[in-house]
């Protein structure tokens, strides 16, 4: 079992996943923040390798990526940062980036260097399973989970495809749109998650637009994990940011843990995918 998968093996535990862009707001932010996240109840950290054209991202992560690149962040440097974090924290580290950076680095070299740095998984929003065969093979040879995404527009056919191919967990995009805080989560979210749940036993984590403890709590009732990105980045832009990170992450953790009693039931209702 991969260490990502192990996160979801604890009965009743809802995973809290947070996202940071490496190199934003400053070069040291990630090194200082990730240990804080880990000790405040975060289960997995996504580290964003900044790309010049992040077309799945909203304004917050666009700004973060742009600034990070101005600071001189490169994929090589991100691998170094991951390696440094690996000795500081125990939780799984996952890279989130766009395919061109991985392709340019070389799939084989990138996966080997990820494994060496102790990175457990990859999330690549512009790489659907149709184009991912090669990276799947190479990443799995290196013990790295390639995590695919599903969206509310995904058909049952595509749910089955992603369920069969995703490793670690499935990333459910909460709404049609780019990353970033919204006024509210869509009403159709529950029916979307349920639709996926009925077709797979893979862990399901929901991201995009989740920014408050209330929203995290709502999502935890139906999913195995919650992903918070843009809101954390906005927090890091504030004054005395590091003092605010722990209370924020703890509030999310508390929201997820309050759900403990009902969890066992929802896990039992999962079925194997129909062939």
């Amino acid at each position, binding site marked *: 079992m991969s260490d990502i998968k192990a996160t979801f093996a604890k009965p009743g535990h809802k995973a809290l996943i947070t996202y940071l862009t490496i190199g934003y707001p400053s070069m040291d932010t990630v090194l200082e923040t990730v240990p804080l996240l880990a000790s405040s109840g975060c289960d997995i950290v996504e580290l964003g390798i900044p790309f010049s054209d992040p077309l799945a991202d909203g304004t917050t992560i*666009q700004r973060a990526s742009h600034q990070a690149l101005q600071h001189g962040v490169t994929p090589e440097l991100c691998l170094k940062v991951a390696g440094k974090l690996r000795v500081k924290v125990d939780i799984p580290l996952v890279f989130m980036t766009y395919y*061109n950076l991985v*392709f340019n680095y070389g799939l084989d070299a990138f996966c080997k260097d990820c494994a060496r740095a102790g990175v457990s998984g990859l999330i690549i929003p512009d790489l659907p399973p*149709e*184009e991912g065969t090669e990276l799947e093979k190479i990443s799995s040879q290196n013990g790295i989970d390639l995590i695919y*995404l599903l969206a509310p*527009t995904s058909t049952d056919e595509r749910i089955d495809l992603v369920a069969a191919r995703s490793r670690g967990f499935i990333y459910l995009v909460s709404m049609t749109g780019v990353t970033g805080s919204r006024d509210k989560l869509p009403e159709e979210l529950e029916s979307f998650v349920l639709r996926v749940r009925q077709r797979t036993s893979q862990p399901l984590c929901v991201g995009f637009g989740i920014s408050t403890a209330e929203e995290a709590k709502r999502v935890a009732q139906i999913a195995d994990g919650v992903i918070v990105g843009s809101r954390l980045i906005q927090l890091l832009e504030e004054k005395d940011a590091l003092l605010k990170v722990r209370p924020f992450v703890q509030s999310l953790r508390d929201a997820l843990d309050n759900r403990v009693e009902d969890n066992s039931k929802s896990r039992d209702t999962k079925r194997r995918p129909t062939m």
Partner: protein
Amino acid sequence: MDNKFKLPDEQGHFGLYGGKFVPETLMPALSELESAYAQACADQTFQQQFYSLCRDYAGRPTPLYHAQKLSRKLGGAQILLKREDLLHTGAHKINNALGQGLLALKMSKHRIIAETGAGQHGVAAATVCAMLGLECVVYMGEEDVQRQSLNVFRMKLLGAQVRSISTGSRTLKDAINEAIRDWVTNVRTTHYLLGSVVGPHPYPMIVRDFQSIIGRETKEQIMASHGRLPDYIIACVGGGSNAIGIFHPFVNDLSVKFIGVEAAGRGMRNGSHAATLVAGRPGVLHGAKSYLLQDKHGQISDTKSIAPGLDYPGVGPEHSYYKDTGRATYVAVTDEEALEGFQLLATTEGIIPALESAHAVYYAAQIAPKLPTDKLIVANISGRGDKDISIAAEALGVKL
């Protein structure tokens, strides 16, 4: 007949290039577009509608004009000009806009988004939307909004909303990023009317097919006037839609040499250019694998060209395939040289080409004198130069 050029395959690949590198949210919309297009291809009524609009609304067929004075002046091969500049809205972009507008209607998507660089595709999209009764939003980089203000006003006049993009290099690349973000958000009601042979499958195929009307006409016309195929076809390449449009119907006629002319901007040496196929290497941007201008880490480079329609760090995947297989040759022409071509065509033939097309004119003028007088060169005049008058004036040091 070998089928080497009967592409893309079912997954949308042209050899190593093309494909669908997009967020999951868009994958179902691409499948929907694929099947709507397959139905349209088999539907006589749709085809007839498209051809009628091309003829009665856009003004097709466009002439293939033998530029005798220019040919004589250069003293070599005969130069023939495919006059896409004479079309309604002033460029070849209307062919594809009409086709995709009809497709959007077929899919019952009444909101259209489009990106534009020079403004030519934006104007074509806005025009077709006005005519078909569709809502239209055009994304345009801030720098292009400034240097193509005439086209911005034109789009607004046609009832479109123009959204100026101030991120990144503030040109075509960033307009496409923003259009894709809009599409991801509004995909259920919106059709993305992509203007070039770039982007995820099936766009490079669909846009090529709608633009291939240029090459089919050229073939008929030159057979009628000269009784034979041309020796060279020359077209400018940004994303590459006018070039693929005129090349593709000749792809199996191997005696016809294809030359794609990219923008060398201020020169290839200082890196301020947009010559993707000449100087780039394969990568993935805007949904497809193709040649790209990128730094050593894979970050997309800023580009520079006097012609906004060529100012793009990517290129259509089919061009990448043509380059690797040697079916086409790609060269680059600087801003200064393009301005020379611009003036040359104006003074010898009384035709002011778009600055984009002027790149092709310049290169045709370079090779014509080296060839015997019985050789035939077709240059695609993809658009007219009215939109570029103020840029040209400024570059030539004239105060208007």
